[in-house]
């Protein structure tokens, strides 16, 4: 239902002013190709600055690509960006347009502006607020809500006035597990009842693994892989992730530990290693016995997650993606 071909967008270079250095031109999406089928929950996964928001802004007609095409339900969005508003609902990363409205008025106004008449808009507003458990705070302005509540209220606005495609830019940022579950069951219900398609931006690996049908991994503007979460994980199926948490610091005086240092991803007291199963067994044996054990606080062995896939694919952010 949504076909993207050769989509490229470069942010122009900014010349530095006195004192402040300029920024070079930046290719934020680079020859992106995607196909999203109807009824799919399709994810874009990637680190901060990978170009996810830039990509979806081009799909929603908010930004003109330098080159390439976007076709949604048979409509050419590059030539007719105004049609996007009649095909899809967009939840952006920012909420400043709604900030000073009450939850209920934000949802109702959005419904009206999506072409519903007053009665339908009110009815859908009430249904969506009930569905998401927002009814108790319906009368409060968004500005005075917590970050997660505000995000949920914006999500509610995106659902009023049904659209066949939902484009959600990090919808669950800052939400607690209950609110997240409300979001995903609302998405699932629409998909089951109406075949709604969802394009979801996230950098939350756990979320990506649990809710997505397919995921495209984006890195520095390019799609470096696109598959189902389990399909992606199969690419690193031969590996095991070992995490070592040291008490104070790694005991580098132990030669076996020192030898591992090159291959470990260090973050504070934590070392993360991706190893073949036999290697992992040796490492665990080494650190749980002998001199290294005294310095060890905790360790875990895990099958690979999407994060490992991302790293194995050579993602730029070697520190990994943000975890929930």
């Amino acid at each position: 239902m949504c076909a993207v071909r050769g989509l490229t967008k470069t942010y122009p270079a900014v010349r530095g002013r006195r004192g402040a250095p300029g920024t070079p031109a930046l290719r934020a999406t680079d020859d992106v190709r995607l196909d999203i089928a109807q009824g799919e929950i399709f994810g874009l996964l990637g680190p901060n600055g990978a170009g996810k928001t830039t990509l979806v802004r081009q799909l929603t007609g908010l930004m003109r690509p330098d080159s390439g095409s976007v076709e949604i339900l048979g409509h050419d969005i590059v030539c007719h960006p105004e049609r996007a508003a009649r095909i899809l609902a967009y939840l952006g990363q920012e909420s400043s347009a709604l900030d000073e409205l009450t939850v209920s008025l934000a949802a109702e106004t959005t419904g009206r502006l999506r072409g519903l008449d007053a009665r339908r808009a009110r009815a859908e507003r009430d249904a969506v607020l009930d569905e998401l458990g927002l009814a108790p705070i319906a009368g409060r302005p968004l500005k005075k809500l917590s970050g997660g509540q505000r995000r949920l209220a914006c999500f509610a606005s995106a659902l009023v006035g049904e659209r066949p495609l939902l484009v959600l830019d990090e919808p669950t940022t800052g939400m607690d597990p209950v609110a997240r579950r409300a979001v995903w069951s609302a998405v699932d219900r629409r998909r089951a009842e109406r075949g709604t398609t969802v394009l979801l931006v996230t950098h939350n690996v756990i979320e990506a693994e649990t809710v997505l049908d397919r995921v495209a991994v984006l890195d520095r503007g390019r799609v470096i892989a696109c598959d189902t979460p389990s399909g992606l994980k199969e690419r690193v199926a031969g590996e095991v992730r070992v995490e070592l948490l040291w008490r104070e610091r790694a005991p580098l005086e132990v030669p076996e530990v020192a030898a591992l240092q090159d291959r470990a991803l260090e973050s504070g007291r934590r070392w993360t290693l991706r190893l073949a199963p036999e290697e992992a067994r040796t490492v665990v044996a080494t650190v749980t016995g002998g001199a290294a054990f005294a310095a060890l606080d905790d360790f875990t062995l895990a099958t690979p997650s999407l994060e490992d896939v991302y790293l194995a694919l050579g993602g730029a952010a070697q520190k990994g993606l943000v975890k929930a």
Partner: protein
Amino acid sequence: MSVVPAEVLPGGALAADETSGRAPAALGPRARLWPSLCAVYRAQLSRARVARIPLLFVATFQSIGIMILMRGVVDGGAEAQAVVAGSSVLVVAFVALNLLAQYFGQLRASGGLDHYATLPVPPAAVVLGAAGAYASFTVPGTVVTAVTGCLLFGLPMTHLWILVAVIPLAGAALAGLGAALGLLAPRPELATLLGQLGMSAALLLGVLPADRMPEVVRFARDLLPSTYGVEAFARTFGEAPAWGFVLGDLAVCAVVGVVSLAVATWAYRRAAVR
């Protein structure tokens, strides 16, 4: 998490490229101008209740303060009429020009325009709804200022009803200008600055008696849309108001209003798709 595989969904098919060769799907409804204008107006008015009431007080007190100061300077007559009219229209300039320029400047900078741009709403509805709401906020402050001014300077209140025409027409002209400045300014600080400058100009050029000013300033005064609202209002304090001139001044406001709102709508369209 999903309980339903995509293959069994209504119309679902997971084949790639399934869209090609199929007729384009029907588009969702478009929001019509008038209902969406009303929806934006209502939303903006409620924003005011939350956030703008203190500022409205500031605007009113500022105008009343100016009139009290000017009482020592002007000695009744035409000058007093100009001061009262100028101070009343200043409330409109404060809210419609200054605050609206700030609002649109910030909305644009923070990406808030994306929200409206991804809804099938005519650009004119967003601009007119917001401008109308901001012009409406000014009603109480303007009325209070005008009445206070009449009491302070002993002017007749017989023709205060003219505010019914002055507020919307001066409001349209100034709100259109404010919205256009806010949407065209490359940075939000610049939008704020332009709004403030516009208001300062309305203050200096509208409140201070015109015939004491040098030629250049009087020319600038003629360029400012609020001037015509001030003049129309000031004329009605006379013994026998020249209604023809009042209408003429109001017509200028109306024309400037139409033009500036059209420019603001164009600016909105430009700002929404970057």
